[in-house]
C-alpha cells in the first residue's frame, strides 16, 4: 500500500467520490489540472494534503486521493498552518474561494501570507458566492445585480493580488480555469516556491455568474485582453496580426503596438517578477484598456515560517540542551517533606 512516486499517474490522484459540481463548472478544469500536475512532483501521495474552507470550490479535497480536509468557512489557512507546524514535510494545498478566502477568511489570508508559511493557496475566483446560490462577493464588480443586491451592489471590489501585495506575500500568480497548460505551469512553480504561494484562478461559475471571464477566454478576444507575464521577458500581448506590448515610462504604462511582421516592439517593459514595484504597477492598471496579467507576478525569497520555527527550536536545544522534564517539573525552588 505504500505509494511509490515513480509510477503515479493522474488517476492515482482521483478519489472514488463522484464529482458534484454543476456540469460545465470551471472547477472541473482546475481539478484536472491539479490531478495532471501532481504526478510530476515526485511527492508520494500520502505527503500531499488538500485543505479547504467552504464553498463550491472547497469541495475539491473530496476528489483527490490524497489526504484532505474540508474545514469551515474561511479558516483553512489556520488549519494548514497548524498542520505544517506539526509535520513540516507535508506538501499542503489550501483551496479557497473569493468568498471563503477574501470575505470571511480575509484576515487569515493576510496573516498566512505575511508569515510566509510554505503552503500553496489556490483561490478560485468566480466573483460570486456559488454554494449559497448567487450573492455578490468581495471581488464582484460594483453595480452587480445578485440575489442579495437586487438594485446593484455598492461595494468597491478587492483585487486579491493587491491584497496579497499589501500582506507582503512572497509569491503571487494568476491563471485562468480554461488555460490548463498555463495553470499546470503555475501549479508546479507554486509548489517549488519555499514559502506561501498565492495563486488566483479565475473560474467561471456557469450557473450564477456565467461569462465573468469570457473576454479573457474567448478565442476571439483573448489575446487582446490577457497578458502572459514572464520574469525577464517583455510584456507582450495581442494577436499575431496586431501584436502589442506594454511600455513603462518611469511610472507610466502605455500600450505600444508592435510590428506585426517581425513582432518587434520598441522598448517594451521587461518584467522583473522579483521586484514588487513591477507587480504593483502592473496590477494597478485598469482593465480595460489594459490587459489582465496572468503568470507569476511576484516571486521573492524570505524566511519561511515553519523553517524559522524549527531553526529556532534547534538553536534553543543547542543552547540549553534538550528539555529535561523532571528538572522542569522541579523548577527552581523545591523543598522536601519527609
Amino acid at each position, binding site marked *: 500500500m505504500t505509494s511509490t512516486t515513480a509510477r503515479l499517474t493522474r488517476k492515482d490522484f482521483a478519489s472514488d467520490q463522484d464529482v458534484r459540481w454543476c456540469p460545465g463548472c470551471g472547477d472541473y478544469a482546475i481539478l484536472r489540472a491539479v490531478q495532471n500536475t501532481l504526478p510530476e512532483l515526485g511527492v508520494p501521495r500520502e505527503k500531499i494534503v488538500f485543505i479547504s474552507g467552504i464553498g463550491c470550490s472547497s469541495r475539491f479535497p473530496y476528489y483527490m486521493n490524497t489526504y484532505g480536509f474540508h474545514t469551515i468557512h474561511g479558516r483553512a489557512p*489556520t488549519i494548514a498552518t497548524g498542520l505544517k507546524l506539526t509535520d513540516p514535510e507535508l506538501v499542503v494545498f489550501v483551496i479557497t474561494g473569493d468568498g471563503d478566502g477574501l470575505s470571511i477568511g480575509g484576515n487569515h489570508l493576510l496573516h498566512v501570507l505575511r508569515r510566509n508559511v510554505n503552503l500553496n493557496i489556490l483561490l478560485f475566483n468566480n466573483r460570486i458566492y456559488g454554494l449559497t446560490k448567487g450573492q455578490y462577493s468581495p471581488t464582484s464588480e460594483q453595480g452587480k445585480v445578485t440575489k442579495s443586491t437586487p438594485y446593484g451592489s455598492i461595494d468597491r471590489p478587492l483585487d486579491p493580488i493587491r491584497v496579497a501585495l499589501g500582506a507582503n506575500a512572497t509569491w503571487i500568480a494568476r491563471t485562468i480555469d480554461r488555460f490548463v497548460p498555463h495553470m499546470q505551469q503555475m501549479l508546479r512553480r507554486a509548489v517549488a516556491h519555499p514559502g506561501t504561494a498565492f495563486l488566483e484562478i479565475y473560474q467561471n461559475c456557469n450557473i450564477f455568474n456565467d461569462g465573468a471571464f469570457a473576454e479573457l477566454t474567448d478565442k476571439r478576444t483573448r489575446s487582446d485582453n490577457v497578458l502572459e507575464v514572464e520574469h525577464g521577458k517583455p510584456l507582450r500581448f495581442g494577436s499575431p496580426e496586431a501584436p502589442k506590448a506594454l511600455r513603462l515610462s518611469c511610472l507610466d504604462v502605455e500600450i505600444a503596438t508592435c510590428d506585426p511582421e517581425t513582432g518587434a516592439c520598441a522598448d517594451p517593459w521587461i518584467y522583473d517578477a522579483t521586484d514588487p514595484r513591477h507587480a504593483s504597477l502592473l496590477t494597478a492598471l485598469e482593465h480595460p484598456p489594459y490587459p489582465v496579467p496572468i503568470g507569476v507576478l511576484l516571486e521573492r525569497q524570505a524566511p519561511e515560517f515553519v523553517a524559522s520555527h524549527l531553526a529556532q527550536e534547534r538553536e534553543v536545544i543547542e543552547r540549553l540542551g534538550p528539555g529535561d522534564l523532571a528538572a522542569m517539573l522541579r523548577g527552581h525552588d523545591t523543598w522536601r517533606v519527609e
Partner: protein
Amino acid sequence: MSTPASHEAHVHAHAREPLTVATVRFAGDSGDGMQLTGSQFAHEVAWAGNDLATLPNYPAEIRAPAGTLYGVSSYQIQFGSIPVFTPGDQLDALVAMNPAALKVHLPDLKPGGILIVNRDAFVPRNLQKAGYESNPLDDPTLRERYRLIDIEISTLTHRAVEGLGLSHKEAERCKNFFALGVVSWLFNRPVEPVLAWLGKKFANRPELREANARALKAGLAFADTLELIGPAYDVAPAHLPPGLYRRISGNQALALGLLAAAHRSGLVMLYGSYPITPASDVLHEMARLRNFRVRTFQAEDEIAAVGAAIGAAFGGGIGVCGTSGPGLALKSEAIGLAVMTELPIVVVDVQRGGPSTGLPTRTEQADLLQAMYGRNGECPVVVLAPATPGDCFHMAFEAVRIALEHMTPVLLLTDGYLGNGSEPWRIPELDSLPEIRPPWAEDPETFAPYARDPETLARRWAPAGRPGFEHRIGGLEKQDGTGNVSYDPDNHDHMVRVREEKVRRVAREIPPLEVQGADEGEVLVVGWGSTYGAIHVAVSRAQARGHAVSAVHLRHLNPFPPDLGPLLGRFRRVLVPEINRGQLLRMLRAEFLVDAVGFNRVRGLPLHAAEIEQAIEQLLEPGARTGAGSRADSGQGADA
C-alpha cells in the same frame, strides 16, 4: 534548592505565639510591587514548610494612575501548619502601602487584626484621591479596632539604601521589601529564599540587589528592635505528605501538565493561542519550552489558534489552544468541526468575569454552560475542571489523554483564581503518569476513517503523512465507518447518537468519587473548579459541629462520574456553590432531577468558606426552602 522544611528559622529574641493558620494581604498601588512582594512572602512560607494558598488581585489597567482606588493591587496568602485550602476569608494582617489600599481593603481585616501602613504615603493628595476627608491614621478608632503598626516606610527605606547611588525613584521602589521584612519578622518566616532570589534576579545590578536586601533587613530589624509591636507569631511546618515540593500557580501547572502529556505520548505538541487575560501566562510558559520541542503559535485571533490546533491533530500532533471566555466564544464554530471530524484537541478556558469583556482580571465560573452547549447542533465534548492550582497539572494531563484515546475535543475549564493562585505542589514522579495510547489506524487494507474502537467508539487515527491511509474528512455529516459525506437521515440520527455515546463512554474511566465525609447524610455539597478549598473548609467546619454534611468535588463535568447519581440520592439536600448563577446546578437538576439548590455569588472573587458554611446551616434548618430550586437565591437580586 532542595531544602528540608526543618530549616534553621530566623532566630529572634521576641516571644512568639504559635498559630495554626494566618491570612495576610499586601495591598498598594499597582506600581508598588505588591504582586512581587506577596509572591516572595509565599515563597518564604512554602520554604518554611507551611501549606498555603494565594490570591493575586490586580486592576485591569496596566499601570493605573498612582493613588487611585481602582489602581490598588493586592496579593493575599493564607498559610498554616494544617492543610490550607483557600487564601482565607478575613485577614489576620493587612499591609496598606497607601490610603487607597487602606480604603479598599480595611473592611476585610478582622477586628483586632494587624494593620501595617506606610505613613509617608498618607499625604493630602493621596488622601483626597482615596476619598478620605481627613487622615484615617489620626482617627483614634483605627487604633482601637486594629493593631495599627504605623511606620514611615518610605523614609526608613530611603535611609536604609543611602549611599548605594540609587535614584530617588529606585530607592522608593525598595519600600515593598521593607514591608516584607516587617511581615516576615511578625510571622517568623525565613527571608533566605528572598535573598537568594534577589541574588539571581539582580545578578547584573548588584546595587539593586543590595538595596532591596538592605530594605528587607531594615524591615526585619525595625520590627525586631522596636518594642512597639506587641505579640509576634510562629507557624509550624505543615504535615504534608512526604515528597519533593515546589510552589506552583495553576497556569504553570497547566503548562507542565500539557508538557508531561506530550512527553508521555511522544507526540509533537502545538499550543496555539491569542493572548488574553488571565490565560496569557500559559502561552508564556509554553513558549519557553522550545527545547522540549513544544511548538507555540501566537495566532492572529482565537479562531486561528483553534484552527492551528485542529491542523496539528490532523497531522498526528497534540493540538492545544488556550484562552478565556470571550475567546472560547469565538472558537465555538471551530470546536464543532473538531467534534464532527472527531479529532483530538484540548481547549483550555481560564475563566474570567463576564459577560462580554466583563471583569477581565477577576475570576468566575460562568463558562460551564458555554463549554457544554456553546456550539451549533448537537455537539458534545468532554469537559474537565481542576480543583486547585496544582491539580491543573493532573487535569491538563488527563485532558490530553482523553482527547487522544477517545478522539474527541476536551474542554478544560480553569479560572483566574486557579491560574494565578498558587500552592505547594508535590512534584510527581514521571513514572507515575499513566500511559497514553491513541487508537492508531494500523492496517491500511481494512482502514476506514470512521471505523471505531468498539470499546471507546473512538475512530481510528491516521494522521496525514502515513502511507496507505489517505482519506478525506470534513465538517459535513459523515457516513459512519466510511466517513463519506452522507445526507442520509437515519445515518445522521445514528451519528448524533454515536458522538454522544462516545463522550459518555469516557465515564467508564472516571475513578470513583472521593467523598469528603460519609457517603450519605443530610446535605451533600457538590462543587467544581476553584471553589474546592472554600467548600472543603466549610464542610469540615460543619462536620466539626456534628452535622451530617459531606462534599464531593467534580473534576469531570461531562460526562459526569457514573457514581454521582447514586450518591446524590443518598442525601436529603444538595447544595451547589458556584461563582455563577447556577450552571452546574442546572446540569444536575436536569440530569438527576434532584432538587438541588445553589449558593451563588458572582463577585469576581473566590467564594468564602464562611458564606458557604452559612448556606449549609440554612439548608440544615428545619423547613429550609425547597422547590424554588435553581432560582433559590435569585429573588432579591433585582433591587433596581
